[in-house]
Every structure is written in C-alpha cells, then in structure tokens.
C-alpha cells in the first residue's frame, strides 16, 4: 500500500526525521491559511500515488500569493497518469546545496532488507543505478538485529566528509530502519535528502507498506486514500480479488496470477487486447466469482469475456455457481467463453449446461474463440 508524501512525512517527523516546514491543503483557502505558518517561497506539490508528477507539471515553486493561487488552481484536479489530484503539499523552499538519496527496501536475492544510499540523489535514482552503479552504495540489514550504526557510518563516510553530517546521516538511516521494521514496509525512501545550511533535511518521502502485514497495523491501514485509486480496483480489493484495469476490450477472469498473466499474453499473441488482469485467488467462492463478473462488465470497453479456470484449490462448481448468479442478476449480454478444468469440472459443466456460455476445451481454443466473438 502506498501513501502520500504528506502522510509519509508525518510518520518521518514521529521518528524524528527532519523535513521541510510544510502543510497539506485540499483547497485554495486551505493553501492560503497554510501560508500563515509558512514563508514564501514555497513549493506546491501534487499529492498523487504515482511517479513523474514533476514532469506532469504537478510541482511548482511560488513566491507570492498570486503565484500560489495560480499554482493551486492549476494543480488541484489535475489528471496525472489517470489519477486526479485532490490534495497538495505546500512546503517552504530550501536552498539545495546538495541532493542525496537514502532508502531501505527488500533485497530479494540476499533475502534481507537493504540500506541504499547515493551522493547522486534528486534525479532518477533508477537511472543512476543502471548507468553508474558505482555511485550506489548499499549494505544488507540483518532482519534479526536491525541496522547497526557502524553500517550506516561505513556508508556515511563514503558520502560525506564532515563527521557532523555522517552522524546526521546515521540517525536518518536509523530512523528509516525503525520505520521499516516497526511498520512492515516494502520501501522507505528519501529522495532527495537535501543538504541545506549544513543540515540534512528530507525534502521528499515515500513509504510503501506490505499489504500482507497491514492486519497488525490498523492505524496505517486507515491511511489508505481510496479516492486516489482506481474505483474498480478498490471494489475488487474489497472482494479480495486481485484486479488491475487496463485499456483493452477482452475481459478475463482467471484463477492464479501466473495463469492470468499467461492468458493475457495469449490474448495479445492472438491479436486481442486484455481489458484487465483479474485473479480470483486461491480459495474459491461463488461470491467472489459473481463480484469479478460485476467488476468486469462495469468496464464499458469490455466486448467479450474469457473465463479461464484450472481448478486445484479453486473448485469449478463454485465458479459455475458464481457465473450463474452473475448472469441472472446482471443481465450480461456480452459473449462469455469459459474454459473450466480441474477440481469438480464435470459438476460445473452440468450446472452451466443451459446457460448462454460457450465452452472451450483448451486455453488456446478459449482465446481464439473469444477473439472471434469480439469480431462478431
């Protein structure tokens, strides 16, 4: 789960990480009243759960109220990669002497968290990592002992000459590590970490939480900003479905993420465009299947639906039941091609015998039939 910069900064301050002076605002009047506690120049920053807001015009430096008004008006409501900006962060502009990067994420290969730091922050750190990997410093963090001061110091002395700055870097790293472990993060990141007036300050902040661990952090789970997410994806999440909306016209309902991706790949291979990724998950239930059909048919781009199930823990009869309910309640007129094999497949076939659903024997056959149905 991602949260907004302003929310991440609140967590940072709780963990004693210095940030710029700043306030969140959801309207022009809130932005203006924020200025009672801030001084110009300030930076107005779109709060949106996707990268690249700067290039999209979602970040503006303003020197006075007139500029503030114009910036707020232009950014609020802006559409950045499909997401609408509902909130802004107004932050006092700092004199940036240098920009660094520091973050913690999971190193899948070493199976530990890893502290990453670079003297080349501020720009696209992934580009730095690809083009000049020697500028990226990193050290594995023991998942049992946590980050040790000496580890952060070893990195710090490679980035800073000044011991005061090294010590400051060490406490930034310690706080990030604490946040990472305390709150079950997948990523905590400061980019840029800024040197201003001989002090280090977190000018941006990014935290991604491990969805699987949210059950033990109810306060964090509440930070989810549903208004910033695709509504159909929110609906899917509620039904415990794994769903990603895409731009094509072939809806697909599959069990298992691997098979779902392979199904999408095959649709594309045979000339179609998938309208979504949808995994109904491991343990099957007719309700989830019905909800899946509701979500897909709500997407007006969808012209045909392929149901591809290879039953294991998922039972084909549960899927059939959900399909029957959806057909009855939602009045679906789209062509539906179903390929159901595995656990209880015969029962499922029997249940769907009198439905308008077309059966396919194999995955490839199902894909071909679906694309044929599209064309009429």
């Amino acid at each position: 789960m991602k949260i907004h910069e302003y929310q991440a900064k609140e967590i940072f301050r709780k963990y004693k990480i210095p940030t710029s002076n700043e306030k969140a605002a959801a309207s022009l009047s809130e932005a203006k009243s924020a200025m009672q506690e801030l001084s110009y120049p300030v930076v107005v920053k779109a709060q949106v759960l996707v990268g690249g807001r700067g290039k999209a015009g979602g970040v503006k430096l303003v020197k006075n109220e007139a500029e503030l008004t114009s910036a707020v008006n232009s950014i609020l409501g802006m559409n950045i990669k499909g997401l609408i900006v509902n909130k802004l962060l107004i932050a006092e502009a700092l004199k940036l002497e240098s920009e660094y990067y520091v973050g913690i994420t999971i190193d899948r290969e070493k199976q530990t968290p890893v502290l990453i730091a670079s003297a080349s922050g501020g720009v696209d750190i992934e580009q730095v990592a690809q083009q000049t990997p020697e500028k990226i410093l990193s050290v594995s963090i023991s998942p049992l002992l946590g980050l040790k001061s000496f580890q952060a110091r070893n990195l710090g002395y490679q980035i800073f000459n000044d011991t005061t700055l090294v010590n400051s870097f060490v406490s930034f790293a310690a706080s990030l590590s604490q946040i990472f472990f305390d709150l079950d993060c997948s990523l905590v990141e400061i980019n840029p970490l800024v040197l201003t007036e001989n002090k280090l300050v977190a000018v941006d902040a990014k935290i991604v939480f491990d969805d699987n661990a949210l059950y033990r952090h109810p306060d964090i789970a509440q930070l989810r900003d549903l208004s910033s997410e695709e509504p159909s994806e929110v609906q899917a999440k509620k039904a415990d479905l794994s769903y990603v909306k895409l731009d094509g016209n072939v809806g697909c309902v599959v069990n298992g993420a691997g098979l779902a991706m392979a199904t999408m790949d095959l649709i594309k291979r045979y000339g179609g465009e998938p309208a979504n990724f949808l995994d109904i998950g491991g343990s099957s239930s007719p309700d989830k299947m019905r909800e899946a059909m509701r979500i897909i048919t709500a997407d007006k781009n969808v012209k045909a639906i392929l149901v591809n199930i290879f039953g294991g823990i998922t039972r084909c009869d549960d899927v059939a039941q959900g399909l029957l309910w959806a057909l009855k309640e939602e009045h679906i007129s789209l062509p539906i091609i179903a390929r159901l094999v595995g656990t209880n497949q015969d029962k499922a076939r029997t249940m769907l015998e009198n439905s308008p659903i077309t059966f396919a024997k194999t995955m490839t056959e199902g894909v071909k039939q679906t694309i044929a149905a599209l064309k009429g």
Partner: protein
Amino acid sequence: MAILINENTRLIVQGITGRDGSFHAQQMLDYDTKVVAGVTPGKGGSDVHGIPVFNTVRQAIEKTGANTSIIFVPAQFAPDAIYEAADAELDLVVCIAEGIPTLDMIKIVNYLKETKTRLVGPNSAGIISPGLSKVGIPPAMAFSKGKVGIVSRSGTLTYEIASHITRAGYGESTVIGIGGDPIIGTNFIDCLQLFEKDKETKAIVIIGEIGGTDEEKAAEYVSKNITKPIFGFIAGQSAPADKRMGHAGAIIAGGKGTAKDKIEAFEKVGITVIYEPEEITQKLNLTLK
C-alpha cells in the same frame, strides 16, 4: 526416484481442521499420499477423515513417524506453524498458506538456515511426484508418472503446462510449485540441482514470471550445471510496467525483471523458450523422441 517427496513421505497436515486443510487432506489421501497426522492446537484427540489430529507437531511425529508437513493455516498463524515444524526437525515443510508478511518470511528463511528442514513456499501449490505422493493442491488429473521435471513460481499455470505434457504421454517425475512470493524457502536453483541429479528426470521445465531476478539467476546456473534438455516459460509479457499483477513477486522493479529480460536470459544459455502452454508438446517431441 522423483525428488523431495515419494512413497516414503509421511505427511502431517498442519491446519487439517480448516476448510482447505480438510478438503485437501482428503484429496491427498485419495492420491494415496501417506497422510499420517493432522495438527490443530486444541483439536488433539479428534480425527479428520480417519486421520488422527494432534495438538502439536512434536506429538504428531512421536506417534506417527511423520517426516514432512504441509501448512494450510491462515497467514497470520503460518509463521508459527513453520517454526514449529522446523523445530520438530521435519525434513520438508510445504507452505500453501499465502499472505505471510515479507519481514516474517525473511526471519523464517534466516532461521531455517540453521536447521535441517527444507521449506517449499509459502504461497506454493505444493509438490506432486505423480503416482507416488502428492503434498499440495494440484489436481491429480493434470499429471501422470513420467520423465519431465517441472519447477514453477505459479500454481494453475503449472497445471496447464503439465496437462499438455501428461496428454503427450511424457508424464512428470516431480512437479514443484516454489511459490509466488518475493521471499521463499526453496528456489529454482535448488530444484534444478535436484532434477539434474535425479535419474528418472529426462527433461526439465522452468516456469517463471515477471518480477525479481530468480529466472536470470537460474539461467546462469543452468549454463554451468545443467546437462539435461531444459524448457522455459515466462508469464507476464503483456503486463504494463509498474502495475502489480497479484503475486507480490510480480512487480517490475527498476527496469529489471521484465519478461523480455528473462526470456533473453533463457535463450542466451540455451533454454528452449515456449510462448504458449501447448507448445511444450511439440518442443518435447523434438527433444525426447
């Protein structure tokens, strides 16, 4: 032969009294897997499908001589179940449970290094050595005893590909779902190593997906260590960057781990790449016939 599980596997089902645990205990029994015990704290003394239920794994081992367990308990309790199984010195623990927090898994894999227990999973479909034993949820009909070893990050996609191999008459020696999570107990390389040594296995299929660099590492390993014919499939070629595709592992991070990267890595070391599940039949025909 077969790897990891065979007719000597004596299985405990941890979480046998739950919906999934009970259902699949029966399915495994039907496959003639030696399901010797169930464990559910508080249900000790009862039985499920005639299988005796114990309060602790230690008790179960003492009474039944079990050497393997499969974990169906909810994610929240799965870490404790894994620790318990490893502490009781089982040889193999297969974790079907999904949704275990990553930091929990990191601690577990670290802990397991100091034990004799091998973990497969979590978020795994389990293992099947057709005709000998099934420790997992794969539907029996997709498999038959034979000579192809399969190792996969996916569940249902594996059944799909295996069913073609079965229909073509080759059959499988062992099929392993290593699990779709970013942190897992047993990886591609561990399984490739076992398949290379297994005399019954004549060809290997590796089924990967976008996210992480496990497939790239596996390709590197294959180039130096695998002499048997090997085939690869990668799911997620059509996935847009930075969109999460359900598996926690399937995030394209920093331009690495794309389907393109993985397919290139496979082809570079001579792994025959298949682009459509049913293609596997034709490719096996060319190699094994």
